[in-house]
């Protein structure tokens, strides 16, 4: 690979990672100048273009969309009181209690089949609890585990559609979506429909759609599926940014690490254990 090819590859990957085109160009020129000054091939100086671009992109990413606010508990955005869910004779949830305020993050963990997604569906309103009381804020963002996007629509078309539901103008919806996507290290490309995206990128679109309207309560069901390590870290950074901006966030996860900063940890036992 020649030096020019290395720089072309570096710039292209920066763009794919969601770096602003002007910023990507500036970074590429900086790296070229450094290599010339050091009189070395850029691969010798910086290593493989792809790995260096990913690291640089991560450092160059914009700050989270929402400026951190003072950490203070806001009003209750979700309250579950003795919630039970039964499918025919099979009891999936029993006596679940949770109070989540604005400005807090709750993680729901448990083994496969423990009822995590069922609980999230009850919070969203796509399922009804068999007994117990569910109260939640009216303005919610919801990213389901599966089938959250339309395979034949582009990212911008998704933003416009969801923006219309939230009574946002098309331009504002697209701009907000693009900014949120950049926070997850992704720049949507025009004309590429969701079915042509990788699983991880589809999931990023799914998450962005859940946050498009700056809701009071954000419900995420295993939102990191298909993410690489950097995207996984970016997601948690976003979750805490949303929390600091005053949203309540409920995250369903089966990964037990990186949960030290959450405000509530709700571990579901699963029907098999009862």
């Amino acid at each position, binding site marked *: 690979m020649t030096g020019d090819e290395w720089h072309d590859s570096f710039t292209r990957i920066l763009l794919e990672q969601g770096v602003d085109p002007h910023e990507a160009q500036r970074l590429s020129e900086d790296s070229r100048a450094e290599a010339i000054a050091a009189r070395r091939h850029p691969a010798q100086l910086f290593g493989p273009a792809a790995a260096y671009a990913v690291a640089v992109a991560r450092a160059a990413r914009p700050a989270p969309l929402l400026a951190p606010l003072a950490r203070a508990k806001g009003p209750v955005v979700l309250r579950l009181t003795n919630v039970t869910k039964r499918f025919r004779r099979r009891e999936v949830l029993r006596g679940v209690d949770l109070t989540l305020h604005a400005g807090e993050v709750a993680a729901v963990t448990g083994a496969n089949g423990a009822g995590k997604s069922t609980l999230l569906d009850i919070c969203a309103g796509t399922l009804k609890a068999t007994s117990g009381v569910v109260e939640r804020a009216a303005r919610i963002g*919801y990213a389901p585990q599966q089938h959250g996007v339309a395979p034949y629509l582009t990212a911008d078309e998704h933003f416009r*559609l969801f923006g219309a*539901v939230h009574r946002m103008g098309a331009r504002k919806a697209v701009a907000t979506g693009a900014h949120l996507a950049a926070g997850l290290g992704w720049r949507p490309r025009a004309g590429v429909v969701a079915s042509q995206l990788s699983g991880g990128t589809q999931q990023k679109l799914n998450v962005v759609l859940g946050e498009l309207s700056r809701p009071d309560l954000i419900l995420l069901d295993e939102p990191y599926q298909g993410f690489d390590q950097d995207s996984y870290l970016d997601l948690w950074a976003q979750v805490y940014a949303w929390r600091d901006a005053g949203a309540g966030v409920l995250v369903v996860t089966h990964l037990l690490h990186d949960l030290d900063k959450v405000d509530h940890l709700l571990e579901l036992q699963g029907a098999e254990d009862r």
Partner: protein
Amino acid sequence: MLLAIAGTSLRELTRRRSALLLVIALPLAFYAARSDEPGQAVRFLALGVGWAVATLALFSHVGSRHLDRRLAVVGASPTALLLGRQLALLGTGFTIAGAYLVLVAVAQDVERLWAVALLLGTTVLVAAPLGAVVSLALPRELEGALALLAVMATQMLADPEGTLAKVLPLWSTRELTTYAVDATSDEFLRRGLLHFAVAFALCACGAWAAAVVRLRPNTPPEPAPA
């Protein structure tokens, strides 16, 4: 919101190119099979258009169910979601019907061409909500397609004067075709339009009721202050 849903739904339809081509080809195949008999050719063409539009509606509504449920959870009205998708389907259906009307005008010597336009239009108007009803009752594409196959094949084979044919949704298409092609009395027109009105009302109301039941979220009350 309605126009945004209709617009995105139309884009989704046009991007399913293979399915769209097959759907367009279905009425043509029916027409070609009976092109030597003008009456039968138009009758089979119209039923083919109905079958094609109903199938397209079935696939569109089944494919969008999860997304529509998500949109409903964050505030979209189930009625707007149904109407938006139906607008896109009706637009597609009328375009297909218009193209085949031109074919009939050029290739057939039909007594009342305006009545052919009328019967193709009424067929599309019944078929789009019919596909939605089937999709909402049978949530998988295979089962839905088989159900439509049963309805449409029975509609084609049943004796038009029998009770079975009259309770099926596109009997009006057969009556209006007879009026258009065979230059029969206005009684065929009256019966056809009456049947169309009833079938359209039933399919539209059924689709709307099913959409509301399936998509309306169970929105919990807002939390009382602590």
